[in-house]
């Protein structure tokens, strides 16, 4: 069984690699853009879920860590002539004005982006994670705001509100999907190990976890730092995908989007976050429709920007009302589950025919409350 699952996982990765290799030059740029965005959302959401879902600590900080990563990559990769052009308000400070990394060091710049974000995580985490309760949410939210304010004002580093333009477009499909796969594997292995078990124990009951010998601070910090690392990487990928970074890109909305993804997918479920990250990226494009101006009979509705967020918010509310566990709950989609699916679907319809299933919404709420 284990052997089979391992082979299937391997096959899946090979399949992803092959389709990426096939798709990267064949699909049109628009589709590629959506796929890249989806992959970046996977990196950000799965790592965010490690803190909020697995360890049960409510962080609101991924936008800050993504910002740190995004600006790091931008500063490292932006070509020198471009740097001179962009920083016309105030010249860029040393050492960033004296070098720019060549393309083959893009991977290194992503790792550095992750490390800078991790450093940020220690700055917030060391004071806050020692405390119990919701301090983390407040502190990380504050940290996010501080990072944005700093980015707006440290003009000789970030170029202020104008942002940095002309970053080379290095985030190709192999990079983004590669990072997504690495993130998922990394976090999956961590969660399934003894360390992950300790994190889940903290989520379930801090007092009991500590009484069983778990060092609360160390394990919360571990989750927080790993999460920040990958958030930083995703920020770097985003910067080199859309070729611009500015403080406004990493506003709190980013965290809000990620929160929607991990809650929809099921807090604590890696596969859940992965699937909903893709759904979210695709829906964001499809729902552009609702923002377009339209005429229904005599009524003319002008285009409303931000309408998409309303749709997402409504989805979130409905989900909270009827299916609070999210798509996957705390569980994971597994091969065993997949193979058992046809049988379960058949069983469901069987029971439906015998009228044993009263209402699906009811079961949703009940399964949460128990």
């Amino acid at each position, binding site marked *: 069984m284990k052997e089979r699952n391992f082979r299937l996982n391997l096959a899946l990765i090979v399949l992803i690699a092959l389709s990426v290799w096939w798709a990267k030059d064949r699909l049109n740029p628009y589709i590629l853009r959506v796929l890249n965005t989806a992959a970046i959302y996977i990196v950000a959401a799965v790592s965010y879920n490690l803190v909020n879902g697995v360890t049960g600590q409510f962080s609101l900080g991924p936008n800050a860590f993504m910002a740190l990563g995004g600006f790091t990559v931008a500063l490292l990769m932006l070509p020198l002539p471009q740097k001179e052009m962009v920083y016309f308000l105030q010249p860029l400070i040393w050492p960033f004005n004296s070098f720019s990394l060549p393309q083959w060091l893009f991977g290194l710049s992503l790792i550095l982006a992750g490390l800078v974000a991790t450093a940020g995580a220690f700055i917030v985490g060391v004071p806050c994670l020692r405390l119990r309760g919701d301090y983390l949410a407040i502190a990380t939210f504050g940290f996010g705001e501080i990072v944005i304010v700093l980015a707006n004002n440290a003009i000789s580093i970030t170029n202020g509100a104008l942002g940095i333009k002309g970053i080379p477009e290095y985030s190709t499909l192999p990079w983004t999907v590669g990072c997504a796969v690495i993130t998922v594997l990394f976090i999956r292995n*961590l969660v399934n*190990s003894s360390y992950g078990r*300790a994190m*889940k*124990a903290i989520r379930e009951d801090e007092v009991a976890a500590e009484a*069983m010998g*778990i*060092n609360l601070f160390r394990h919360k910090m571990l989750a927080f730092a790993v999460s920040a690392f990958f958030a930083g990487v995703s920020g770097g990928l985003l910067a080199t995908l859309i070729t611009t970074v500015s403080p406004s890109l990493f506003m709190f909305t980013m965290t809000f989007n990620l929160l929607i993804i991990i809650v929809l997918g099921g807090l604590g479920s890696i596969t859940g976050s992965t699937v909903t990250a893709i759904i979210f990226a695709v829906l964001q494009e499809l729902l552009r429709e609702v923002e377009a101006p339209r005429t229904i009979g005599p009524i003319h509705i002008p285009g409303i920007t931000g309408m998409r967020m309303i749709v997402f918010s409504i989805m979130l509310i409905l989900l909270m009302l009827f299916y609070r566990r999210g798509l996957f709950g705390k569980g994971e989609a597994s091969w065993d589950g997949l193979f058992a699916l046809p049988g379960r679907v058949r069983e469901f319809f069987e029971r439906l025919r015998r009228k044993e299933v009263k209402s699906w919404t009811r079961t949703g709420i009940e399964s949460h409350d128990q």
Partner: protein
Amino acid sequence: MDKDRNRVARSIDTAVLRDSQDEILKIEHVTMKFGGLIAVNDFSLSMKRGELVGLIGPNGAGKTTVFNVITGQYTPSDGRVLFDGDDITGLPPDIIVTRGIARTFQNVRLFNGLTVLDNVLVSYHSRIRSSFLEAVFRTKRHLEEEKAMRQNGIDLLRQVGLEHLANEEAGNLPYGQQRRLEIARALATSPKLLLLDEPAAGMNPEETRQLMKFIQDIRDKYALTILLIEHDMHVVMGICERIRVLDYGISIAEGSPVEIQHNQRVIQAYLGEEERAYA
């Protein structure tokens, strides 16, 4: 000067304790204040290795506070706790448990969303040698550790009779078995001293009977010293060798079950009050 003398006195004290190997826990003049409330006042207790001592008293007498002081949830306002000859006063709970003191909670505190086996495995985590990176990259050392851990966990569950439920979610277990699992989880930390906080609370007579047998079994099997808080007098009188009675944070009596049953102060403070309450 005074400080030095204290230190010398303390080290002699410690040396003496190490020599007399049969004293495992020594609580000296512990006082715990919460603001103006004195929850525990000048509490001293020493336990011999292998003893089973009961701690009883009316609700709010400070029994659980004593547990919280021993296990490091609270740092006492005054006094100290010696375990195996070492001063453990004020150490954090996760360190104290590695020294060999494990506990259960008054209201069962399992990791409800985790499986029965995982609940037990959490207790082994503090002894893990491989780093989180080794865990992520699945090095040989880590995989072997995980395997050994899992094997120990299953063995332990077998010994406490929960093996058939290993993959069940802990929160779905019947109450009696949740209690049993909580004790198993404490045992997984390989304690020398086990603190049980009202293990029979909410159990029916049959479950209580099984529990009493279970406590005696594990005590022999794992060579445990046990300190037990319990309201069920049947349990306390049935298995404890020595009983300490607390009332309003003050020790009012100590003795064998028979002595306690006939102690006037205890009857007044504890049983008498109950009678009055029912009258």
